[in-house]
């Protein structure tokens, strides 16, 4: 997703001189090298200084530029939180905050590098829009949307590099604010966002072999949430599974359950998320997820248990 973002941005920047990137000295910024080389003045590295990264973006946007703040998700959102809130959200400025390594992507770097609460925190702020694409192809479409929009701030949650594409045969295209089905199904609907949705696709394929028809939808836009799309899911399916690489509070799972309650629909809803706990485990990304109950086994069980 990281490289897709960088390439998409670079292509758009060729024709839109307002596009700038402000990074705070992180190695993933290396994927922006092409852009930096060609437009050195439009690439700003503030160093290990995240508050000025956001503040500068605000000032640049006020003067007509379209800056993207870009760093590891924890440092893009948590460290300069009040700057994101006051400088970008309160003033409604068209700045995209790109958080790379959303969730527990940086699985060997410890809790300081785990963006486990980013979607909840970003969604809590008025004026903020939140997008978390599930694969490089969706990241491209999301990036293009962020580039084109002029209305206000966006938090774009990306993974790392090398995620598989899972949207090649999607039923719907990417439309901001609308969930999209990646595959149709009848018996159960798996909802999620971010790269962890791959678990949903894998589970759906296995379930099909067992005679269970599972739909999978990418709820890439977490704010504004697609209430109509979710309402339709809740009324159509008897079983809805939400998987998210985020703490349980303030995420998609809670929102889906609240909406079902509000609408009076009564499907069985099961939410799989990270626990409300820091992770002190070091290993592969999937090993950390599994330790918190996010694995193919867990998803399969949720889709079929009674």
């Amino acid at each position, binding site marked *: 997703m990281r490289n897709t973002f960088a390439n998409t941005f670079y292509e758009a920047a060729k024709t839109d001189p307002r596009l700038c990137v402000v990074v705070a000295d992180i190695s993933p910024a290396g994927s922006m090298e092409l852009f930096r080389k060609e437009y050195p003045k439009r690439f700003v590295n503030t160093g290990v200084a995240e508050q000025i990264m956001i503040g500068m973006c605000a000032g640049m946007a006020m*003067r007509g530029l379209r800056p993207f703040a870009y760093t590891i998700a924890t440092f893009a959102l948590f460290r300069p939180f009040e700057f994101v809130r006051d*400088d970008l959200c309160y003033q409604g400025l068209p700045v995209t905050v790109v958080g790379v390594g959303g969730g527990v992507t940086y699985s060997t770097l410890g809790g300081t590098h785990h963006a486990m609460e980013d979607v909840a925190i970003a969604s809590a702020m008025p004026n903020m829009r939140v997008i978390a694409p599930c694969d490089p192809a969706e990241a491209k479409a999301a990036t293009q949307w962020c580039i084109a929009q002029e209305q206000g701030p966006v938090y774009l949650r990306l993974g790392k590099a090398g995620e598989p594409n899972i949207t090649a045969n999607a039923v719907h295209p990417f439309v901001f604010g609308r969930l999209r089905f990646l595959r149709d199904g009848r018996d159960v609907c798996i909802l999620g966002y971010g790269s962890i949705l791959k678990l949903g696709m894998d589970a759906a394929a296995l379930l099909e072999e067992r005679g269970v028809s599972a739909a999978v939808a990418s709820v890439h836009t977490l704010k504004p949430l697609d209430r109509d799309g979710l309402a339709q899911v809740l009324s159509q399916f008897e079983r809805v599974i939400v998987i998210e690489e985020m703490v349980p509070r303030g995420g998609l799972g809670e929102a889906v359950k609240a909406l079902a309650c509000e609408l009076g629909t009564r499907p069985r809803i099961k939410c799989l998320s990270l626990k409300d706990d820091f992770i002190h485990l070091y290993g592969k990304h999937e090993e950390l997820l599994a330790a918190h109950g996010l694995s193919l086994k867990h998803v399969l069980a949720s889709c079929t248990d009674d």
Partner: protein
Amino acid sequence: MESASTLTQTTKFDTAAARRRCMRYRRRILDVSQKVTALHIAPAFSCLEMTDVIYHALMRPGSGSERFLDVFLMSKGHGCMSQYAILEDLGVMPTEEIERYCTPAGILGAHPDRGNPGITASTGSLGHGLGIAVGMAYAEMLKGADAVVHVVLSDGELQEGSTWEAVMTAANHRLANLLLFVDMNDFSGLERMSEAHPAVYPVVEKFRAFGWEAVEVNGHNAGAVYEAVTSRARARPFALIGKTVKGRGVSFMEHVPIWHYRSPNKEEYASALRDLAEVRS
């Protein structure tokens, strides 16, 4: 930047007129204080002359719908009454909005809101303004435009780490179109800064060590402020460290922390007006 240089060198600054204006603004601010319980009078009075110089002598006129070519933002948002009074005088801020200050019928609160007449940035939380100003100055440089960005900070904001992130970044990019005015009134909300936080000082030397051009002047001497700014070298970001008095012009408010926030009662108001008649530059 060339045109700024030409303009400022050929314009003579009228110190007496500035003094008369600031007297008027102080009266106006005291008048408004009679309608609300909290007005931040003292911090508005301390940065008044610097803000007056910025608006009346440094900011160049704009074209079309833009009143100014240059930019101003009040980082110490609680000092915004000084800005409001000047904007009203310039015809930018409608008088009826000043009259409706801090009421649901109006648009003005105790901190500036972006989008209100003449207001560029929403401030109030300290340590934000300089970073935004750095982004603005960088954007102007990138666009090849020559707008100068003026920003007023409180000395309390020098305690915010974010301010120093912005100071370093401005110097790294040699943003010569950035003019910083620090209102050194020696008081934060609670107590005297130089006593409680002696390590904040010396300030001029700190800015110079960080790669800025910096000078210290009497921040209530409008002529000296103007002179210091217009004679800057224009090669690096410039900081004017203005030594000021919190509550300047009203003897019982000067150096007294409670006036950071409080509005005077009727008797205090009358006494303040008498005091103002005697104020000198």
